[in-house]
């Protein structure tokens, strides 16, 4: 059997629904007149499970589109660059964090070249961002973080 788009999405819904239901039944359910914190979550997560199962059943009974190939490099690199930005912004500060995110995400592209023009461009763009966001808009983020001061 081919793994179709639908079967994966259906499984995603069903599994998310199961996890949510398992958590939600631990909250007080209450009654219809006095809904507890568990009332609505139990209903919605149950519906999510049912929907997920229906999507899976549909994927078995009909031949849907196959799951397309994924660009693993972009899928890993770009979110990783964003996480690095998050890790860097407090200890290193705004300017280094922006520079890191810019270079790391740009490296994902097939057209990425590390030459002096690109480096100068990245530096200038990070500098402009710093002036714009920290100086002009006044976001309360230090330009250089605690490690670099």
């Amino acid at each position, binding site marked *: 059997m081919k793994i179709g788009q639908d079967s994966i999405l259906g499984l995603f819904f069903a599994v998310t629904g199961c996890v949510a239901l398992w958590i939600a039944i631990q909250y007080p359910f209450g009654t219809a007149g006095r809904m507890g914190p568990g009332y609505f979550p139990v209903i919605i997560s149950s519906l999510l499970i049912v929907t997920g199962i229906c999507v899976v059943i549909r994927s078995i009974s009909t031949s849907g589109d196959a*799951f397309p190939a994924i660009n693993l490099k972009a899928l890993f690199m770009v979110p990783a660059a964003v996480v690095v930005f998050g890790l860097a912004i407090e200890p290193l500060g705004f300017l280094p964090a922006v520079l890191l995110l810019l270079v790391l995400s740009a490296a994902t592209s097939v057209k990425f070249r590390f030459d002096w023009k690109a480096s100068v461009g990245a530096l200038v763009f990070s500098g402009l961002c710093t002036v714009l966001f920290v100086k002009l808009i006044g976001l309360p*983020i230090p330009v250089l973080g605690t490690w670099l001061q």
Partner: protein
Amino acid sequence: MDIFNGLMLGFSTATTFGNFLYCFLGVLLGTAVGVLPGLGPIATISMLLPFTFGLPVDTALIMLAGIFYGSQYGGSTTAILMNLPGEASSVVTTLDGHEMAKQGKAGRALAAAAIGSFFAGTVGTLFIAIAAPLLAGLALTFGPAEYFSLIVLGLITSMVLASGSLLTALGMALFGMMLGMIGTDVNSGAARFTFGTPNLLDGLDFVVVATGVFGLGEVLANLENERSRSAGIAHVSSLFPTREDWKRMAAPILRGTGIGVLLGVLPGAGVLLASFSAYALEKKVSRHSAEFGKGAIEGVAAPEAANNAAAQTCFIPMLTLGLPGTATMALMIGALVVQGVQPGPEILTQQPALFWGLVVSMWLGNLMLLFLNLPLVGVWAKLISVPYHYLFPMICVFVAIGVYSINNSVFDIYMMALFGVLGYFFKKVGAEPAPLILAMILGPMAEEYLRRALLISHGDASVFFTSPLSLGTLIVAALLLLSIISPRFRKVREEGLQEVD
């Protein structure tokens, strides 16, 4: 306060130097980001959100609105010049707009879009000024049962209008409601789905999810076909419509405006529905119907007018009921809450300057768009042609800064990365994220109104069917669901919602 006094107050608010300047900045920035291929209004607003922080509430709202319709118009420019719709509602514009561009009539297509949009924007603004106070007055009589039914209608409309199957859209909406439940339960104070982390006690920030799914997710998806991206941009020649053009587009603009104004108020996906219906109607009634799809100016003017009229009037339910009709409006509510404003029926009486200032600034913004876009079209064409490998790292930087600046929370950045991956996943499996985004903000409201309605009725669910307004709303929702089973409507829906990516 009557409309005339309201508009006077609005003029005095909107024309203060600061507000006027930020309205202009919003429109300019919104268009500049909106023309970039693959960036729709949602991604644009969430990227530009930090620019509105630190501004007074009215200025911030005026600027946000400017960004919103700037990005809408920018999207149409890209649709016409490059055949790349920034969002679903400009798909229709590509049909005839890009065809005109290929025939060397790009300038006239852009002018038709701009003139249609301006006229529709003016009518839409007037409609807000008349209808919003009426609806706000009516809304004060709404009880929790009416609100709950309206939310159900909004969710069902957004599911029916999402591309792909209804079942998938239902799953996305339910998943969005689950996401909305994360955080402290307002009623009992219980922490729900927080996985023990204090970062989730205040809930998952809506803007973070929208930015991840629409901003970062879009980048991930675009990097896929990086090599096959061809930047074929049509050359822009004369911008002036001929006498023949004027004659042909006058009636379609009028009809498109009418459709847009009415459909924009509907909860659900009003803007999208408006542009599709306007196009379909013109195709039926036009004397030049054979030219449709081959560069008919009516096919640009009518949906663009409808699109823009609906973009104005979809502010009505958002401002007066506090219920967002579209994913974009849901994001606007998110941005307003960041500013400490809770939209609802009281906004007109408690903050009249805010409301009327926004109404007038919308009209001024549309005027600016007309004078900004046509002369600057060369600049926009240059912006569109910036290669993607320069563009996407900058997009990553802007979304990351935008998300961090909301709460100064590193946790939000990680969440955005996670939702970027999820957004990519949804794109891969063909699930449209719009119902998810809308449900995430409507879900907690639905729970709260359901709880209140059932508390009043002592657990008796018939309360939703005894109030005529609630019953009527639910009947409309049920009819919408039934209509999707009808093969004829199904065919129209499939044709209309064909995704162009």
